[in-house]
């Protein structure tokens, strides 16, 4: 059975459609990425799935239940890391985990969760003394303490420096190896590529592409050639890189100009993403 099943989901705020009829499913045990720029409808979708918001239309099943009518035992099977929000500044890291553990039937031990999120050195620090990245790890720890089957991560690494982001990715990978299902929203292409088994790209409330990262890249067969000429960045896509490169370099040699920083690469997920989410000129 799918962990999440969404059919024709719609949601408007004050007449503005934030989510315009999207469909996707998440299989048990996979990491699913909802990728898209800010304002694409990612958080709205996630908040409907965890039961914070009601939908205007469509069908939603999360762990077999409708989140709008879900009960306490259902909430015991999910874990949520919200995009923003504080915890209790005057409780320590360990006290948070002990407090939240008390809400669940069969919680994980706070000791294990401290290690899993890498806060064992900070267990007795008050939350207000933690750095932004440490607070974010505590957010994750609090979401994991109930040993949920399905974990929702809303932009888990926004604002992280590169090394903190890589550490967070390791933690999220370890969730998959524990057999958890993960829904991850992100606007970082690399994050989706690194972590997600499958991705849906959202743009203005609609899914414009979905599949494995490799599928999406394969849909853009082009090769990208990029160089600088007199300080101007030039790039183009081609179906026939051998010929294009031959012509370009031949021309450069003949006319005696220099192709600075010349590079040739297969289209990446980033190229696909930028093309998919490109805004039309207003």
């Amino acid at each position: 059975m799918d962990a999440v099943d969404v059919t024709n989901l719609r949601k408007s705020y004050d007449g503005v459609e934030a989510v315009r009829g999207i469909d996707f499913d998440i299989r048990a045990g996979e990491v699913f990425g909802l990728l898209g720029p800010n304002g694409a409808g990612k958080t709205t979708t996630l908040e409907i799935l965890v039961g914070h918001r009601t939908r205007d239309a469509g069908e939603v099943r999360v762990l077999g239940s409708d989140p709008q009518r879900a009960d306490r035992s259902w909430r015991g099977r999910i874990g949520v890391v919200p995009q923003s929000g504080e915890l209790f500044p005057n409780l320590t890291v360990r006290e948070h985990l002990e407090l939240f553990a008390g809400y669940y039937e069969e919680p994980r031990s706070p000791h294990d969760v401290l290690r899993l999120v890498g806060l064992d050195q900070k267990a007795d620090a008050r939350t207000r003394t933690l750095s932004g990245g440490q607070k974010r790890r505590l957010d994750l720890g609090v979401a994991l303490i109930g040993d949920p089957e399905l974990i929702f991560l809303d932009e888990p690494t926004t604002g992280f420096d590169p090394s903190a982001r890589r550490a967070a990715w390791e933690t999220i990978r370890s969730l998959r190896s524990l057999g958890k299902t993960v829904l991850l929203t992100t606007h970082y292409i690399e994050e989706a590529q690194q972590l997600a088994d499958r991705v849906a790209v959202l743009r203005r409330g609609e899914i414009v592409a979905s599949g494995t990262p490799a599928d999406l890249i394969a849909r853009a067969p082009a090769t990208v050639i990029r160089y600088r000429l007199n300080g101007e960045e030039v790039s183009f896509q081609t179906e026939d890189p051998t010929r294009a490169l031959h012509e370009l370099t031949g021309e450069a040699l003949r006319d005696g100009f220099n192709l600075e920083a010349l590079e040739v690469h297969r289209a990446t997920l980033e190229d696909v993403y930028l093309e998919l989410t490109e805004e039309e000129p207003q």
Partner: protein
Amino acid sequence: MFFHQLRAEQKLFWRSRELAFFTFLLPILFFLLLGSAYGDEEIDGVNGYTYLLAGMLGYGAASTTFAGLALLLVIRRESGVLKRLRTTPLSSPTYISAVLASIILIFMLEAAILVALGRIAFDVPLPESILSLVIVLLLGAGSFAALGIALAALIRSAEGSSAVVNALYLPISFISGAFFSQDAFPEVLRVVGEILPLSHLIVLCRDVMIHGDRVWNQLDDVAVVVVWGVAGLIVALRRFRWEPRER
């Protein structure tokens, strides 16, 4: 799970020093200060210390269960903690009842300290009917807690919340005669005070502490406190939100 949450609420209250100072300690300090200043005079024809103690019990109810609870809930809502608790199996009735029990417990402790201080420092006799005093205090705490939740629901952001709360409960305490006799007040203030629940709670405390009355003989004052509490409860049930205001 109720006691798990109640323990956590106690820890949270005592660790937030500012909240604990303003809502718990301040009434005790005021009692000591005002008592030293003019407790040995007669106020409205009765012993000044006893008169003040009754006022401070009412003021304590307003500051702890009304102001303190409202601030605590607004801060938790706007910081996103309430929303996060909603994604856990902790049920809303369990949570709310633990928060209420915690704040009422804190107020009752404060009241016990006030009464004990009155006895030790100023020789204020214990009321004839301690049961009546306990009932009056619980009644006041329950009513003001409902009003506190209602106020939290009406405050829209954390930024101005302490200003709004202070601008309400301090003048209310003053008008209701918590610090001074209302006799010297202009007519209009006395009328306003008469409408507010705190003046009736303070009158109940004075009746029980000074005149040895029983709470069940003062049902008109009880009714005013209860009506305000019910009104607060209705607003709380209709308007209370778990989510912070949209950014």
